[in-house]
């Protein structure tokens, strides 16, 4: 009966149109866009999908989802429960409002230890807001367990996992003893979408709310300081290539690219 812990973060919707994406530079925060709800980070729902594929084969698997975040993060946990995860842990403590990636990893490590025993911890390869990509590996080091990053497939097989890992020009198959951490990438495939029946079932599943005092730890220190956050000026002077025929446009384009030493 493997116990799988999935880490899930709620993020501003990454499909927000660039024209509506705005930053408060003084507060160093991204401004919420009215009418656009935050969503689960996609790599994290892919992680839940990976866990569910294990549970599809080993039906007595228990999948626990942990999310660190404000009240709204409960929606992300509920989404994962509706996908088919079994229980949720919501670490919701105002003291964590400005926790960096490393402080968050410390909190998650403490929560995971409280949930022990566990066999497998699955995280997304990065959260799609800050794109830092450090939490999974940091937790593995902190817990002293192996980690395999950027997986496209995870097979659990009593006491070990066999992971297909994405390389630049191919794949490698890596075996790791459990317990261990695996981070997943988009190559794993689309996460399943909750059906109405599952959403209703999920309403009855428990989401525990924990604070730092429930974990018995003080606020972990931040290790990085966000000094500035801004929207870069990416506007470029666009040169429209005109012409009466596709051939003429193509000729002009090729000539301009040659002048610019690009082809």
């Amino acid at each position: 009966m493997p116990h799988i812990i999935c880490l899930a973060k709620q993020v501003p919707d990454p499909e927000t149109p660039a024209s509506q994406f705005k930053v408060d530079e003084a507060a160093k925060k991204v401004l919420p866009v009215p009418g656009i709800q935050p969503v689960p980070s996609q790599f994290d729902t892919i992680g839940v999908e990976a866990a569910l594929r294990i549970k599809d084969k080993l039906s007595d698997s228990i999948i626990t989802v942990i999310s660190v975040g404000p009240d709204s993060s409960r929606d992300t946990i509920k989404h994962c429960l509706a996908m088919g995860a079994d229980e949720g842990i919501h670490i919701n403590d105002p003291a964590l409002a400005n926790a960096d990636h490393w402080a968050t990893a410390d909190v998650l490590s403490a929560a995971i230890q409280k949930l022990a025993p566990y066999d497998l911890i699955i995280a997304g390869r990065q959260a799609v807001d800050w794109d830092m990509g450090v939490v999974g590996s940091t937790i593995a080091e902190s817990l002293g367990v192996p980690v395999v990053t950027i997986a496209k497939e995870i097979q659990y097989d009593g006491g070990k996992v066999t992971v297909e890992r994405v390389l630049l020009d191919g794949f490698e198959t890596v075996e790791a003893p459990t317990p261990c951490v695996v981070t997943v990438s988009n190559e794993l495939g689309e996460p399943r979408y909750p059906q109405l029946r599952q959403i209703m079932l999920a309403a009855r599943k428990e989401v525990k709310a924990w604070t730092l005092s429930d974990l018995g730890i003080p606020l972990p220190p931040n290790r990085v300081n966000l000094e500035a956050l801004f929207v870069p000026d990416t506007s470029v002077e666009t040169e429209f290539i005109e012409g009466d025929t596709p051939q003429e446009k193509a000729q002009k384009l090729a000539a301009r690219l040659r002048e610019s030493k690009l082809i």
Partner: protein
Amino acid sequence: MPSGILVLGEATEAGKLNPVVPELIAIGTRLGGPVTCAILGSGIDGLGADCVAAGASKVIIVDDPLLAEYQGDAYAPVAERLCKETDPSVVLLGQTMVGRDLAPRLAQRLGTAAAMDCMGFEMNGDKLVAERPCYGGSARARYTINGTPQIATVRAKAQEPLVPDPSRTGEITKQAAGITADAIRTRVVNRRKEKSEGVRLEDAKVVVSGGRGLGGPEGFLPLEELAGVLGGAVGASRAVCDLGWYPVAAQVGLTGKVVTPDLYIAVGISGASQHMAGISSVKNIVSINKDAEASIFKASRFAVVGDWKEIVAAFTEEARKLKAS
């Protein structure tokens, strides 16, 4: 007192210096140096001279069969020891398959932090200020790091390397990894290459990418032909990978790959934030789209409005002529 820059370099599978290493050395030099460059691998004896020519004042070659292929359990303890022995102020790695895996583990072992996928660097006194894209390239963040050393991974082509100069001098030492096989808890049982001829997406100087505007999977054939003529690689938007028109390994974007070619040709791609996240540091985007209002035009240096099939076919012929001339 920590001082200087440690570059944790890597070799390619063919035993050459990974092209990001001279870029890291150049950044380290610009930040004030001196740059010590450590290369981990197996059968990499000859790379020391390349690092010196690229600007490193000291090179440490850690050559060990256990380091032949990257495994975090083998590399992390070696990197940790190198940091303790050289006591650098700043450690730089590439945002490569190795750096992405190794940097956070190293940071946790040393009780410090790593800023990942950075594109800009400055020193403010002895503080490294690292700038990196976030929110899929929609925003930039600048970080400082409280711990020591200050670790950062660097996106490819964030900095021009110095012109290699064989007359530069530097000290090259060799050492053993000092690890044993039983420390490696993971085991690589199989490694296989994807059957792709030609250039890898991540290394390509030219990328030709297709989106839903292609109309179907057969639309990728002319793009492959054009990429072949230009010596480039083919990419795809998430929409077409989701539709199964092209392999997901070629997906460029927020939930796909970040690419850094000199020239990016986007065909039938509208320019959703999801896609733009994968090309946020590309300077020269050419877009071909029948919709004159496509948002990708705003980010493009050259824009062509019209039927992509006719334009790509004619452009491929023009490019072929230019390449032959």
